[in-house]
């Protein structure tokens, strides 16, 4: 690398740190949406770097579907402890109990959609005026149109056809009372960038990302983890399988990959060779061509 050039990972890092500081400067009460997945872990890592030696000037916000991998919650609590951050938990179970949402029924029932209501309620209750999310533009075609600073109206809705122009590195976070912003510092990162960065920075990630044995079954070609609340058809046989997670979300819709990768180098080699996107295993995106766009308009992550 020539003098006064930085490599692309450092450039992405610098861009994300700039965005995080912009959020801290432009908003009164931001929060960082934390799912326990690799992207939000990288987000926390970047936030720590952005404000060092001070602590992160905003809380982590976890929307808990109640249908988690156990490891996710343990990991979350340890991370919060380590960085000395405040944690806000919005519970989907509570939203169900309060009658704000109704549980989906049937084999493919998932709490993924219900999260949106809990998320918006949590944002309102905690009076957040900006919610930092780990969404990336390479994930999904509706996300490819997303701004770094994404305006949401008083109902939390996204209006993709009427977004604010975003040029250079000038970000317009002005809003009316009751409106909020979603901010995506990782917009320009790809899945490969995330893994290479985790490797480069030696960032701790949950053991779920590495190969392990797990009771699982196959539905419509997707490998799903078994859990007490998973309804299974008679034909769906639970077996012990050698798997790992490529993404981590709600357990009911997170597809697992057959893999023996037990270290980051192997994971990176696996990603480089794979021919399916990481969301290819996500049942939530398969519901329709515009599944993500529709959910996002309603206020989804």
């Amino acid at each position: 690398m020539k003098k006064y050039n930085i490599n692309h990972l450092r450039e992405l890092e610098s861009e994300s740190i700039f965005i995080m500081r912009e959020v801290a400067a432009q908003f009164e009460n931001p929060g960082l949406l934390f799912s326990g997945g690799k992207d939000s872990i990288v987000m926390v890592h970047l936030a720590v770097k952005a404000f060092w030696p001070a602590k992160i000037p905003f809380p982590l916000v976890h929307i808990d579907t109640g249908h988690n991998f156990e490891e996710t919650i343990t990991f979350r609590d340890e991370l919060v402890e380590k960085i000395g951050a405040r944690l806000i938990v919005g519970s989907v179970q509570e939203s169900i109990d309060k009658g704000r949402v109704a549980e989906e029924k049937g084999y493919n029932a998932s709490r993924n959609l219900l999260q949106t209501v809990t998320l918006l309620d949590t944002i309102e209750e905690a009076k957040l005026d900006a919610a930092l999310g780990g969404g990336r533009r390479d994930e999904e075609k509706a996300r490819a149109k997303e701004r770094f600073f994404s305006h949401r109206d008083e109902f939390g809705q996204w209006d993709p056809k009427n977004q604010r122009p975003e040029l250079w590195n000038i970000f317009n976070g002005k809003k009316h009372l009751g409106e909020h912003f979603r901010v995506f510092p990782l917009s320009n990162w790809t899945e490969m960038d995330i893994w290479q960065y985790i490797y480069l920075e030696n960032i701790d990630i949950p053991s779920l990302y590495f190969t392990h044995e797990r009771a699982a079954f196959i539905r419509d070609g997707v490998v799903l983890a078994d859990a007490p609340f998973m309804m299974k058809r008679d034909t769906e046989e639970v077996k012990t399988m050698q798997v790992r997670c490529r993404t981590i979300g709600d357990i009911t819709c997170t597809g697992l990959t057959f893999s023996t990768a037990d270290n980051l180098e192997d994971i990176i080699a696996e990603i480089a060779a794979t021919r399916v996107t990481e969301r290819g295993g996500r049942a939530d995106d398969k519901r329709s061509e515009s599944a993500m766009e529709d959910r996002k308009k309603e206020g989804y992550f």
Partner: protein
Amino acid sequence: MKQKTMDNNQDFSSKAYLDMELLRFSTAGSVDDGKSTLIGRLLYDSKSIFEDQLESVKRASIKKGNEQIDLALVTDGLRAEREQGITIDVAYRYFATPKRKFIIADTPGHVQYTRNMVTGASTANAALILIDARNGVTEQTYRHSYISSLLQIPHLIICVNKMDLVDYKEEVYEEIKEQFSAFASKLDVKDIRFVPISALKGDNVVDHSKNMPWYGGGTLRYILENIHVGSDLNHLDPRFPVQYVIRPQSDEFHDYRGYAGRVAGGVFRKGDRVVVLPSGFATTIEAIDGYKEELKEAYPPMSVTIRLADDIDISRGDMIVKENNVPEISQDVDVMVCWMSEKAMQTRMKYHLKHTTNDVKCMVKEIKYKVDVNTLNRIEDGNELKMNEIARVTLRTTKPLYFDSYRQNRQTGSLILIDEATNNTVGVGMIV
């Protein structure tokens, strides 16, 4: 585990990965000029389109009644875009080759989307301009080229596409090249290259074309991989807009006070004599902090934290510069404005103005002339600027701005205008 494909030289070992540079380029085009096919090919040939994405495009193509896979559907993200078969907004695409990572800002080409073209061009190092070999240089070519030059994209790559439809004739290519070069002399662009291609057939996109032995230059991908981008950023005039003040107020860092920001120009080193604007106080850089470490120097586009030797009152919006290299300081700025809102800009109107990390208000003093983006002619008419129009405008700000011309520095030379009632970004400007 490594796959055997035409691209099996893809090396994503971490060592190689860390050596990669980032290149951002913009494309603009309409439905018929093969832009989507070209992007589709660049993504496909670098293994950046995945099987499930291809499946979903296939499904959508069949649904629309198409016989062939419509690669344009890969780039159209919103439901309305797929339904209407047009690109409305800027879409960002990513692919990597062993040498570089690329970000494509894919924008619509029609005149009514000039504002989207401007948006996509604002961060680009290079612009791909497509010319249909059958039609030669058109109004749209002029428009794209002018906007690329206005936004100071350093490198233009002119792709003469659909060479297969003109029997790969060298004369056709040469004629277009000549036609474009004559026009380009009016533009302010550092580097212009030409490449004859067929996006559909793949000629000169990734592999050298056997159909055009007369072409001795590199393929499109080779050009993209080898354009020199190191000198695109300003490394001469040190500019550090203060973004955020870091004060831990903890036992360990009791007296710590650091000024966080992203270097917008030049090189800063520990011990440098600096001046803080607007106060004009001079002091010395005590340290440049990265994460848990001190850095010897900082340059664009690094995000760092600067500590100063003296206790001076500094807040967001201030700018740290070198004592012997100070930007312009003024409340009157001349700006090339591109208007982005349905509600026209008028003289005497007031707007919020954002420039670097600074936030002020401004009034439109004068609209000097508009530019016809198709002919580059100046039009002196009226006191109104409508959506997608570009004009030279004089603004008067409530507080001084510290700025350079956009030509000199894209960071300290750019600004946006915000409607005070709606909070929408309604205009963008490049300081003359």
